[in-house]
Structures are given as C-alpha cells and as structure tokens.
C-alpha cells in the first residue's frame, strides 16, 4: 500500500495510498484548530483524572488530589443551607411552642419549615395535602382525637401514638368487644345502629333502645354518655360527621368487634426539636387548629398529668 502514496498534483496533498477503480483518497490533514482543540482536550483529561476521582481500582477508585467527592459536595451544600437557616431555627428553638404564634414572622418561618418537613416524614400516611385516608386522620379538619391546640399537637408529635417504651405516648385502648367475647354479635349490631343514630346517619329504630343500653354499659366510660368522646382518653366523638375508619354500619361493627390500633412514630427521638416544633406549627396552620386552652399548664410540661391519663386508659380496659 505504502508504495502507492503520492502527492496529488492539483491539490498538493498526499494520498493515503489506497486505490479503488482509479479513485484515490487524499490524506487531508486535520484542520489546525481541530487538532489543537483535541490536544487541549487530552491535556485537560489527564489533569482532570489527577485532580478528581477517576480511575477504577480493584476495590476502590483513585481519590484525586483535590479530595473532591460528590458526597462531600452535598454535605457542604447542606451545611451551607443549615448555616443560612440557623438564626431562624435557633429562634424557633428558643421560643416555647405556646408562644410561637405571638411572633408572626417566626410562626410563618415555622409553618414553612414544617411544610417542608411534612413532605418528607408525614406524607406517607397523612397524604401530601394532610387530608389523611382511612385510618389516618385528616389534619385539615376541626376534629381532633387528642386535641388541636399547638401544644397538644406538639406533644402528640413528640411521643407518637402507641409507641412502646414511651410513657407519654398517646395510648387509647378500646377493647375488641367481639373478638374478646365481651359483647355478642347481636349487641354489637345494636350498638352500631345506636352510634349511627346519634351521628344522624340513620333514623331512630327499635335497635336504638337496645343499643343505647349496651352503649351506656360498655362505651360511655370513654366516649361519654352522649357519645361526644373524651380527648383525654383519645376517644373519638361519635356524633360528628367525621369518621376515621368509616361511619357505615359494617365498618362500625368491625371497629367494635376488633377495635382499631393506629400507630404513629414518636418524632421526638427521631427528629431534632426544632423540626418537630415546625411540624406542629404547620399541622396547626392547616385550618382546624384550635386556640390554646387558657390558664392551663401545657401537657408536655407536666408528665405526671399525662401519666394519669395513661393510667386511666389502662384502667378503662
């Protein structure tokens, strides 16, 4: 091949030496700018592999002299963000939860921060709009199992619901009336009818009278004689329009038969105190938040009172 290389006369360019049916190919050199760019790329690539982690080894890869890692870059970014928000977070941390609403700016920051944290930790059960679903309370409405003022919400968040090894956790234990044979199926059906009449879902029938007796004997301890519930026990109001698991007869029968034991993690040990406060502020801001009870010691500042509640719960079983 090589012997056929020659200089092409009209162009003055060397040929590559191939010939096909008299057609030859010119060995036109690369444009200079292209070549220099190519060399520059090679030099840049070598420098890059020295400075940044690049070469795969058997169990690891070269580290690069700059020590850069994507994990490190993320950490730096997170730290920069944490530093940026530190003043307002510290201010929120230093403010007792009951006094958060006195400072609108602080409250606004807490609500926004809580909104972000909610998207990470809470949406899995309560939904992205906090509207809940069957078994997971809707946090937008005005019905609260344990209370809807900001301090009570905070306590619920810190201690969770039915968490073992937590004395302050929200623990309501309704007996499984059917499964444990406390009530007969007929009685359960009667009491379900009764509950549906007190919540105005069905008209008064004969079953109501029988059910009323069953209710007074078994349920009124926690749900109250009028069925309006008792927040200290976490016993829901049975007369309103909101049903956590459902207000139709079959669901009520099932609830009375087997009881319901919803759980929520205790966020106090899992998240930092400021984030939990912000979550409380956010949940309180969703439209159903209640005012703080006047002249009452906040519940989380009085563990003894909470313990009493728990004892009452156990006793009611």
């Amino acid at each position, binding site marked *: 091949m090589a012997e056929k290389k020659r200089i092409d006369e009209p162009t003055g360019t060397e040929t590559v030496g191939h010939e096909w049916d008299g057609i030859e190919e010119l060995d036109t050199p690369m444009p200079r700018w292209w070549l220099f760019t190519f060399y520059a790329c090679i030099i840049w690539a070598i420098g890059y592999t020295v400075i940044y982690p690049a070469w795969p080894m058997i169990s690891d890869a070269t580290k690069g002299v700059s020590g850069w890692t994507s994990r490190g870059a993320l950490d730096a970014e997170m730290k920069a963000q944490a530093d940026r928000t530190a003043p307002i977070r510290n201010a929120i941390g230093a403010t007792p939860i009951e006094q958060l609403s006195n400072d609108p700016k602080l409250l606004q920051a807490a609500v926004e921060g809580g909104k972000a944290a909610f998207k990470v930790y809470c949406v899995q059960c309560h939904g992205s709009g906090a509207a809940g679903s069957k078994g997971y309370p809707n946090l937008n409405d005005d019905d609260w199992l344990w209370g809807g003022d900001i301090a009570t919400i905070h306590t619920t968040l810190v201690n969770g619901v039915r968490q073992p090894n937590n004395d302050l956790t929200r623990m309501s234990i309704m007996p499984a009336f059917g499964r444990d044979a406390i009530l007969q199926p007929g009685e359960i059906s009667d009491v379900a009818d009764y509950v549906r009449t007190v919540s105005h879902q069905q008209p008064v029938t004969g079953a109501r009278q029988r059910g009323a007796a069953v209710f007074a004997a078994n349920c009124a301890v926690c749900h109250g004689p009028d069925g309006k519930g008792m927040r200290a026990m976490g016993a829901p109001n049975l007369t309103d329009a909101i049903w956590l698991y459902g207000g139709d007869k079959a669901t009520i029968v099932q609830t009375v038969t087997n009881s319901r034991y919803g759980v929520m993690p205790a966020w106090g040990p899992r998240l930092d105190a400021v984030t939990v406060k912000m979550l409380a502020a956010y949940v309180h801001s969703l439209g*159903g938040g209640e005012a703080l009870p006047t002249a009452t010691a906040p519940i989380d500042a009085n563990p003894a009172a909470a313990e009493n509640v728990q004892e009452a719960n156990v006793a009611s079983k």
Partner: protein
Amino acid sequence: MSHPNNVKEVEEDLHLYAKRKAVYPKAVDGWFRRLKWLIMVVTLTIYYVTPWLRWDRGAYAPDQAVLVDLAHRRFFMFSIEIWPHEFYYVAGLLIMAGIGLFLLTSAVGRAWCGYACPQTVWTDLFVHVERFIDGDRNAQIRLANAPLSLSKITRRLIKHGLWLMIAVMTGGAWIFYFADAPSLLHDFVDGRAPFIAYATVGVLTATTYTFGGLMREQVCIYMCPWPRIQTAMMDEKSLAVTYKDWRGEPRSRGMKKALEEGVPTGDCIDCNQCVQVCPTGIDIREGPQIGCITCALCIDACDKVMHQLGKPRGLIDYITLLDAEEEAMGHPRMPVRKRIFRPRTIIYFSIWGAIGLAMMFSLGNRTRIDISALKDRNPLFVKLSDGTVRNAFTIKVRNMEARPRQVEIGLLGMDDARMWAEPGDRDTAQRTIRLVVAPDSVSKDRIYVISKAPEPAREEFSFTVRALDKQGGSDSDKVTFDRAEGQ
C-alpha cells in the same frame, strides 16, 4: 472573458473578505449638516438627560421619570406605570416604532439611517472628535501615511482616549435607566454597584467604541438588516439622494476649454467634493446604492460648488425616482403635498395612529386593582365535624396604585357560603372581608369558605374585589366549590 488569463485575474481580485477602504470624510457646512447637528444634539440630550428627570409618585414608588425596574418588575414612564402582565403596551410601542419607520421610509426615504439612527449619531460624534484631533480629511490622510513618530502616537492616544471616554459615558448612561440614577452613580464611582452594572457598561463601552470608532459605515453596509428592508420598502415615490445625471453629464474638469472646443458639458465639474464628504465613502453619481444612508452631506457639498460656479443648486438633491424621470424629460416636479399624501403613507399613518389611539384608550381605562383566586387542590375539600364543607383558596389582590388601598373581598353566588381569612376563625365568618393591600404590590391571603348545604357536589361562584376609596375599581374571579369526591 474567453481568455483564460483574464479569468485568473478576476479570481485573484475576489476574496471572501473585502478589505476596508479607509474613509476620511471631509468637513462640510450647509442646510442638511445643520439639521444633522440639531438632531444629534436633540437625540444625545434625550439619551443622556432622560434618566435624571424626576417625577413625583409619592412615598411608595420611585421618583425617576423613566425607569425600567427589572428587580421589581415595573416599568415607569412619567405618569404611566406598567406591570409585567401589561407588557403588551411595550409590544405595542415596538409595533408603533416599526410602523413609524415604514411611514418615515415611504414618506422621506432612509431618513432614519441618515439622521436619527444611533449608529449614525455616534459615528458622527466620533468623526468630529477625530477631526478635532487630527484635522480635516487631508491632514488625516497625511497622518495615516506618515511614519510612526512621537506626535503621531500622541495624537492617536488622545483620539482613542477621547473615543473611549465617550464610549464609557454612552455605556454609563444606559445603566441609569435601570436603577435610581443618582444613587447608582454614587455606588458606581465608589465601586459598590452590582457587578451587572459594571459588566453592562463594559460591554456597551466596547460596542460603542468598536462600532462608532472603528467599524463605522461597515455596520451599515454589512451588519445592519435595515438597509435591506428599506431597499424593499422604497418605491418610485420615496425620497432618495439622487445625482441628476441628465444635468451633470458629461462631466468636465476644464469647462472653459471644453466650451472653446465646442464639446458639450454637463454641470458636474468632477470636483469629487460629494465623494470626499461622504461618511460611507460612496460615489453618489454611480446611482442609488445600499451604502447611501441619505445623510445629504453630498447635497451640501455640491450646492456650495454650484453656488461658486453660479449655477442653480440641486445637482445632487433629494428627489423621488418618479421626479427624476419627469425632470429628465423636462416636466415639472410633482408637488410635495401629492408626494407625501398618497395611499401608502395614509395607510401606514392610519395603522400607526390606530394602534396609538387604541393603546391610549386602553391605558386610560385599565383597572388598577384585580383579584385572582387559586383553589387548594390537595385536599379539594374538607368535611368539618358538623358536616359543613370547607374549601380553601389563596386570594391574590393586585394593587397597581402607588398607595395602600383598602379593599373589600366579597362572594358572588353561593348564598349560604361564608368565609374567613387567617387569623380569623369560623365564628367570625362573613360574606365579606376587608383588607389593606400594600402600595404597588400583590397581597396574598388564605381564605376559607364554608357551606352548610349538602349539595351540589360542585358549584361555581366568584370572588369579587372592590376598592373602597374614591377612585374605586373592581374585579372578580370565578372558582368552584367542591363538596364530594369523584365528581
């Protein structure tokens, strides 16, 4: 062309890149030159002075008469304030500017190019500076050809220094349209202005210096699309700078001698004054051409020569192609009135005027307050414990006046509905809410609407807003109220 050697010669002369032929325009005085002076003074004054004009808008808005406030997305122009959503006014202005140029072109030809285009104005300014330092045309040519000497270097340094100074001032003036001029100047000198200010000044300094000082007529001839468009827009009734060849030809340098010899001569004595004064370096006697920006300096130069020769002025003159034909045949020229008022100019003017009037009308009638309601979609509705349904909305009220305004938000439709805004609650729910919207801003409030009615699953109603001051104004936005899922 049949001879191969000839072809080769032509090929050697043709290049992709045409080397610039230096232009040393000669100073000239005359009617059109004075008009150019006047227009230059007026346009430069407008450019430099406008940002420094003040306009009292009260305590809540900037007091700069013309301000493009990009940071706050407002455009102030004397008594007019434009918000981003009203940008069509700016679009309308641009359309008017475009049609205005059409109108100008069909009436008086390339007058924009010759007198008012920034490229022309700044190039003119740079040419004068050059003349001030280096002397007139002949001195400039001599200096260009002279070997490098101390005096040449000094003159060059002074010239380019002055050019750069003008360029810096040009770029410098631009930034004042975008921020409070006095405080920006203060910050700029102190080195505390934002980086973008310095970058803008830097870029505009570079473009002004390059375009006005170095490239000059090449911008018009090679870069600017406008001459191409103008070429398409001009017709036989558009004014153009024309050399009357029927009067000037044949040219003669020795007229007396020619007369003695009985050779016929035209009025053109081939003195080349028209070429020497031309800022784009063309010879107008070759006929109309894209390089001619119709600055009419050649008319001034030629008129002067004709005056000296005792001949009537206007061997080179502003005339239309139609006039040129008529005049060549010895007919009288068309009256100016007829030339200006013809269907084309009237149509352009009507469109231009109609857009202007429509914009003025709409400016006079625009509301300065409006409302937009955004419904919470997650959750769509919330059932409260007594069975009442609650929907949440984010209400934005836009106050476009530079003062705080008290407004009343109301409900239109859904007679049983009540609403409250935070920090209120259900007990205080009413049909109306009053709030104060900060000056020149948009308020954002979360509003809860409740309805006890069990039906229908979806219902339409409107939020209304009404300003409670003397000026008044109202607006509404239609939204839906949802009661049940799956509807």
